[in-house]
């Protein structure tokens, strides 16, 4: 039967130490969502609303000869149309983050001269109803002249067909990370393992709610108002402001409930641009765009695809890795957009969980005629962590060390934390051997080893695989300067406000835009502890709003950080409020501040003088400040009971030339073990057993953390075995519906058994570490387990996506001798 959560507080109660932080408090978000009363963007109806539908390129690469919108405009009920040419005439291209030649790329939200991926918007129609917009879109005539498509990053580097002529090459960015003495390490190595090529596939975590934008741009006001589900609005408005020539502070973004993002909704700003431009053309009427699932699959954002070439690994006689050298080629799709930030973000986990000191990575990114990439849960780090885990397993096999032992020999030692990596990142805390021990215990390692040996005698292909991963959270935006020295970003910040409202209600607002992570709940837990009241007595505002005065230029929900940046801001604001309340209460109750006790009395939340027993409740405090202010003494004139706090991470700008510096504040870790059998007849890989152990330091709400671990695990398992954004040779996307893409379902998910350890972070006020992304541990783990099942057949798992078809092909090619030698061991 299903696994039960071990030792987790199931009911609503304080944790053992009498605090709300650490308790599994039921989520405050639940009630409205369970009743069908959540407020998602598509639920919003505005007066005079119009509906936008895009016309998209069927070609991956084609010159646009002509666009004829006249028939669409003639259709009754059509408000206006807008073409890529019109957009280009009214706007500046989006900012490019990449330096040098890539600065010349002209990225508009719709194709202008040519389309560069299948599904790229070419025109849009705006009509009185969604169905009329559908009809009108079909009437737009576009003539194309197909061009040679580029669908592979290594092919792209040949520059035979160039996507962005103005840049002159498909190569966006190249950088070399070199630390230690790589040459010496290879000279002194006892073993050198060579791995020709490995590939991390394209997939997307595909939130169930697609992108939705309502944009309103009143031409008379020069202000834009968005209701949308973008998950990093502070970033989106920076891109939109320069592009639309509207002052950034005149762009209002509101989000409400968001039906998942997983990073994918960070890059919806091109569609936000078109909705605003269309609204302006429609005389300021609001324009709503609801992305269809197929549109989402072909044209929202995919995760980064990466090829690892010419990997060489040096090891000493004990199997300790002493150096790694490799070339990484990342494919960012048709437009860089959020890229090339992934080219540096990978290096947050440069050495993974391992101790090697010498490394040389040449990292290149190219464009291709595929959907642009965007940050996807585990963004850019998971590709690199998968690469490192493949290395560890392949090397272990080549030199004859068990994979668990190989890891123990190479893991960063527990006593070495805080650990400085070769590139200057500081891992705050961790205990990787302990996670391995807990995971092995949970899965019954020795037992499975016996079963595996017995099964192998019967010719069955069973593998046991370990995947260790990191979830680096709260990024230092200074790393952007490693890809572009002129990038004006560094540090990290978040804002929050905590107040007693006019009549004493405790109200919290924070600059995040949650998508199911329970920010309202955990914020209330933190404030409840500060004020010693019940979390139900605290209201936390839903969603994000630039007019709430709590956002910074980095606000949003991304990069596994709410528990650090968000809750630090909430905690700071609550402390400020508490200090003001103390001053006020001490004056009113005629006592000293240290005589005051916060708690709940007969008239609700209150502050009491221990010496006299006199108390004042929150209504009384708020009343003095807001409606009875003549009684305030002169020294209390500055008390507002409305406290804003901006939290800033203590980061420095990294050394750009050396690519050295601390790039992330916290490092959660996970270790998964999977047991997989490959069916001898059908080649279907079936998970027989699965455990996931996480360490995110001090836990604010255990059941929320557990849920995040399961959710991230499901994304990883789906990605490893079922989900791939497949393209054919000319750039047609083959998985453009859910029926083709097959997101993991209730019948495919194995029972995941969950375990937990805690190594508190010394770098956060609470000891908590961000953990939402999960580090894609299942992808590493499933590759490792399949590897273990198939080593005997001479197969190396060199792709992150493996299904019955790919396993069958590998086995058949191997049998037929068509499989080139992928791995070569040199013994010295």
């Amino acid at each position, binding site marked *: *039967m*299903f*696994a*039960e959560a071990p030792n987790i507080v199931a009911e609503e109660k304080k944790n053992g130490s009498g605090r709300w932080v650490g308790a599994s408090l*039921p*989520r405050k*978000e*639940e009630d409205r*969502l*369970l*009743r*069908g*009363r*959540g407020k*998602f963007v*598509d*639920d919003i109806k505005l007066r005079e609303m119009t509906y936008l539908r895009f016309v998209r390129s069927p070609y991956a690469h084609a010159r646009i000869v002509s666009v004829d919108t006249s*028939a669409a405009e003639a*259709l*009754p009920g059509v408000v206006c149309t807008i073409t890529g040419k019109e957009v280009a005439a009214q706007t500046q291209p989006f900012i490019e983050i990449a330096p040098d030649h890539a600065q010349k790329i002209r990225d508009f939200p719709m194709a202008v001269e040519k389309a560069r991926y299948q599904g790229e918007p070419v025109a849009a129609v705006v009509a009185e109803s969604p*169905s*009329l917009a559908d*009809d009108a879109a*079909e*009437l737009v005539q576009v003539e194309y002249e197909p061009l040679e498509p580029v669908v592979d990053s290594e092919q792209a580097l040949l520059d035979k067909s160039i996507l962005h002529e103005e840049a002159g090459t498909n190569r966006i960015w190249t950088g070399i990370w070199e630390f230690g003495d790589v040459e010496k390490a290879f000279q002194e190595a006892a073993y050198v393992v060579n791995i020709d090529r490995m590939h991390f596939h394209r997939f997307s*975590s595909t*939130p*169930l*709610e*697609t992108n939705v934008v309502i944009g309103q741009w009143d031409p008379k006001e020069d202000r834009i108002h968005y209701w949308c589900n973008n998950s990093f609005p502070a970033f989106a408005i920076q891109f939109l402001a320069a592009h639309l020539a509207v002052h950034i502070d005149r762009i209002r973004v509101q989000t409400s*409930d*968001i*039906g*998942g993002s*997983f990073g994918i909704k960070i890059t919806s700003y091109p569609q936000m641009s078109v909705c605003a431009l269309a609204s302006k053309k429609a005389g300021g009427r609001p324009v709503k765009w609801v992305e269809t*699932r*197929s549109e989402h699959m072909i044209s929202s954002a995919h995760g980064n695809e990466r090829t690892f070439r010419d990997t060489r690994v040096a090891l000493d006689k004990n199997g300790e890795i002493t150096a790694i050298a490799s070339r990484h080629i990342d494919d960012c799709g048709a437009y860089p957009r959020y890229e090339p930030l992934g080219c540096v973000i990978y290096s947050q986990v440069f050495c993974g969980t391992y101790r090697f000191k010498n490394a040389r990575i040449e990292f290149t990114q190219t464009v291709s005629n595929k959907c642009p990439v965007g940050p996807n849960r585990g963004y850019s780090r998971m590709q690199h962590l998968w690469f490192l885990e493949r290395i560890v397993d392949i090397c272990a096999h080549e030199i004859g060390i068990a994979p668990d032992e190989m890891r123990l020999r190479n893991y960063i030692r527990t006593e070495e934390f805080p650990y400085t990596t070769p590139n200057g990142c500081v891992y705050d805390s961790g205990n990787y051997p302990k996670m391995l021990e807990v995971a092995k215990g949970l899965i019954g390692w020795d037992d499975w080893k016996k079963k595996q040996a017995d099964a192998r005698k019967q010719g069955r292909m069973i593998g046991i695989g370990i995947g260790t991963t990191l979830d680096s959270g709260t990024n230092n935006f200074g790393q952007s300067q490693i890809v572009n020295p002129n990038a004006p970003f560094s540090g990290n910040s978040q804002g929050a406000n905590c107040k007693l409202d006019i009549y004493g209600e405790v109200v919290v607002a924070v600059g995040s835009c949650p*998508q*199911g*992570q329970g920010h309202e709940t955990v914020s209330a837990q933190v404030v409840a502890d500060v004020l010693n009241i019940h979390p139900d007595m605290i209201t936390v505002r839903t969603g994000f709003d630039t007019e709430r005065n709590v956002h910074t230029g980095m606000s949003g929900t991304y990069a596994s950080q709410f528990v650090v940046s968000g809750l630090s801001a909430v905690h700071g604001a609550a402390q400020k409020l508490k200090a003001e309340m103390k001053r006020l209460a001490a004056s009113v109750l005629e006592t000293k501040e240290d005589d005051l006790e916060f708690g709940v009395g007969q008239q609700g939340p209150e502050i009491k003088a221990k010496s006299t027993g006199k108390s004042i409740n929150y209504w009384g405090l708020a009343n003095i400040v807001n409606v009875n202010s003549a009684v305030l003494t002169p020294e209390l004139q500055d008390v507002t009971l409305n406290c804003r706090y901006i939290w800033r991470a203590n980061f420095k700008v990294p050394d750009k030339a050396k690519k050295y510096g601390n790039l992330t504040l916290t490092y959660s870790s996970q270790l998964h073990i999977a047991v997989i059998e490959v069916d001898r007849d059908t080649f279907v890989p079936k998970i027989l057993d699965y455990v996931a152990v996480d360490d995110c330091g001090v836990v604010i709400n255990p*059941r*929320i953390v*557990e*849920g995040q*671990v*399961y*959710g*991230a*695990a*499901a*994304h990883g398992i789906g990605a490893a075995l079922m989900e791939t954004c497949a393209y054919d040779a000319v750039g047609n996307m083959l998985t453009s*519906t*859910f*029926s083709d893409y097959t*997101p993991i*379902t*209730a*019948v495919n*998910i194995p029972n*995941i058994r969950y375990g937990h350890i805690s190594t508190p972070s010394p770098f956060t006020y609470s000891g908590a570490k961000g953990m939402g992304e999960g580090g894609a541990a299942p992808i590493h783990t499933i590759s490792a387990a399949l590897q273990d099942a198939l080593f005997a057949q001479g197969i190396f798992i060199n792709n992150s996506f493996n299904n019955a078809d790919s396993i069958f092909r590998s086995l058949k090619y191997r049998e037929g001798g068509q499989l080139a030698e992928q791995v070569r061991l040199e013994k010295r």
Partner: protein
Amino acid sequence: MPETATVEKIAINVKVNGKPYSRQVEPRMLLVEFLREACDLTGTHVGCDTTYCGACTVLMNGLAVKSCTMFAVQADGSEITTVEGLEKDGKLHPIQQAFGDSYGLQCGYCTPGLLLSTHQLLSENPEPSEKEIRKAIAGNTCRCTGYMNVFKAIRQAGRNMKGA
């Protein structure tokens, strides 16, 4: 085909959550569009366009159907229950309660559909096996929870309903 702009509408009568709705609809209007746009019941969601994800699941005459895969006109004369119709006098349905208690939702977008698929399962089979639970919600995609807490919620809901 500009004539679609003036297409003839068809009168339908549908009872939704016990309340009658008489509307003139285009023949192509989907049941989910009818519920969301004509009845203003936005608890029912759309997550895909190929009947895969089940965010739009509602009960039609007591049976779970995907309302994105039916035309509104096909629902003429039927009784529909949406997520908004599950609670009674403001009190959560035992299934809703169980999903909340078991952390069986995160973003909540798939939840309405899951609640109604669960409703059909438990109406027929109050003590489903693991396999029966998995099969009953095979057509309901959840991208947040990894299903583990959904399974727990459904078992808890079965217990809640037996106790109710």
